[in-house]
């Protein structure tokens, strides 16, 4: 029997894509576009509101004066701005070394049960409400010390930052190509030197980014500071005393019945947002330079 030649396929009419397909395409694409715009709406509203209501009290005095008593005109948030930086400094001093070291451990030696547990705990910790962290820091630091303090505030922020730093450091270290490690090991480098001299520098930019991100999130935290740093209307940079911070002061001012204070709360919020934006910008600049 002669082999049968298969019949050719019926010719397709290339008259254009069918109507239903075109309609579906337009609907889905349009939906995605609307969703993308919707994500911009909250940010736009926040910005617009803050600028609209905050600009009135935005003067040089706001940055150089401490809060004044009710009824006295003027007054600013100088102590709270500095206080926020002090708190972030303490938090970073605790969370960055611990978090980075733990992240490196998880990435390089993390194939055991202990590491799995640490990973799980870090994930759980990142989901713990910040007010709970504040209460824990109250019990751990404030009660033994006998008073509210900047240090206690820093500890609570550090606990909040830790899981982010640990998990993202781990990811950044895992991203370092295997070939770097092999190259260094083949030169006779012991493992700890491979980590210290090749892996960590290669992951530095990513680790810096994640630390700054954690810091930016911590900068806006209010709840944990209520039980720990407490807030302070006067100039203080003593680590063992209550300290003012932008979020807490904004909270106090916004709840107050005084119109002047309400206005300053808006300005404080605007300043906080600008500070965080500046930090992110600085971070982008520095990490680009590292690369």
């Amino acid at each position: 029997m002669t082999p049968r030649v298969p019949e050719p396929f019926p010719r397709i009419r290339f008259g254009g894509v069918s109507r239903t397909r075109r309609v579906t395409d337009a609907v889905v694409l349009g939906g995605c576009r609307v969703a993308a715009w919707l994500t911009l709406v909250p940010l736009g509203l926040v910005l617009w509101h803050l600028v609209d209501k905050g600009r009135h009290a935005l003067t040089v005095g706001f940055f150089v004066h401490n809060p004044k008593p009710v009824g006295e005109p003027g007054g600013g948030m100088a102590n709270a701005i500095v206080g926020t930086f002090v708190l972030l400094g303490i938090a970073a001093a605790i969370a960055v070394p611990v978090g980075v070291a733990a992240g490196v451990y998880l990435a390089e030696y993390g194939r055991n049960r202990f590491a799995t547990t640490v990973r799980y705990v870090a994930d759980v910790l990142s989901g713990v409400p910040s007010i709970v962290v504040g209460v824990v820091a109250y019990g751990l630091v404030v009660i033994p010390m006998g008073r509210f303090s900047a240090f206690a505030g820093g500890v609570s922020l550090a606990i909040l930052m830790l899981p982010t730093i640990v998990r993202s450091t781990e990811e950044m270290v895992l991203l370092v190509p295997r070939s770097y490690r092999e190259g260094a090991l083949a030169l006779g480098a012991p493992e700890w030197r491979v980590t210290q001299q090749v892996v960590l520098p290669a992951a530095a930019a990513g680790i810096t980014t994640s630390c700054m991100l954690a810091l930016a999130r911590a900068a806006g935290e209010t709840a944990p500071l209520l039980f720990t740093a407490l807030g302070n209307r006067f100039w203080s940079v003593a680590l063992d005393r209550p300290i003012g911070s932008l979020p807490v002061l904004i909270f106090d001012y916004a709840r107050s019945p005084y119109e002047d204070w309400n206005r300053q709360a808006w300005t404080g919020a605007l300043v906080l947002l600008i500070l965080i934006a500046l930090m992110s910008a600085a971070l982008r600049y520095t990490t680009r330079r590292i690369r």
Partner: protein
Amino acid sequence: MTLDTEVAPVAPPPPRLQATVHTEEAAATPARPPKLTARAFDLFYGAVHALKKVTLAIPPDSVTAIIGPSGCGKSTLLRSFNRMNDLIRGVRTSGRITLDGEDILGPTDVVTLRRRVGMVFQRPNPFPMSIFDNVAFGLRLLGVRDRGELEGRVELSLRRAALWDEVKDRLEVGALQLSGGQQQRLCIARGLAVEPEVLLMDEPASALDPTATARIEELVLALKSSYTIVVVTHNMQQAARISDRTAFMLSGELIEYGETSRIFTSPRQKLTEDYITGRFG
């Protein structure tokens, strides 16, 4: 399977008629004990039997090529010589591998072993730091701190790797700015800086263009007077051009091992002949 050189470690075959280049080598070889040997070496990745009773002896100051199709175990064998397979979980070995007659599989100091047995990888893998720091990396590991000594040794290594003239004015530039071929020569310089005795090369030119490949090959030929070089390659022409001895592997077994000119002109095993004539692989 009767292996051509099962017995070679003890008594290398007498020199035979062959191409001019190899005559001297062959004459020089018998007098010197082998640099590296594998004896009945087995390696398992978990349940996979990756190397089966491999036995061969690699003479000093020569180039030995390992050829064979993908997955035949040639890279695995190469990485056994400096215990890079230790990094892979689930690897078991049996048999012996010796360097200068000493067993390296036992409780050897792996760090010292890797200083004596350097390695160049398939893909150039310079560290993301300056050219200078790349070459100085191994020296600093060894505790060299003196700037003058570092500079001298870095220059010497770069010269040996035939890269000095191209980079001498920009040693502080990041190594990742170099071209692929330059990066690979940098990796060779980095390996040479710690004065190894053996240089293992895992398809050192397979990621490079023909010009860069030619430079690497010239370099290998220039280096063989002072280093024992073992090259894994996919490229049979390359094996023929640069090596003194060639080992052909298939499915984890060493099929044939001998003088390169002999392997390529009159292979004794049918499988070798089929492979080098391109009938499979």
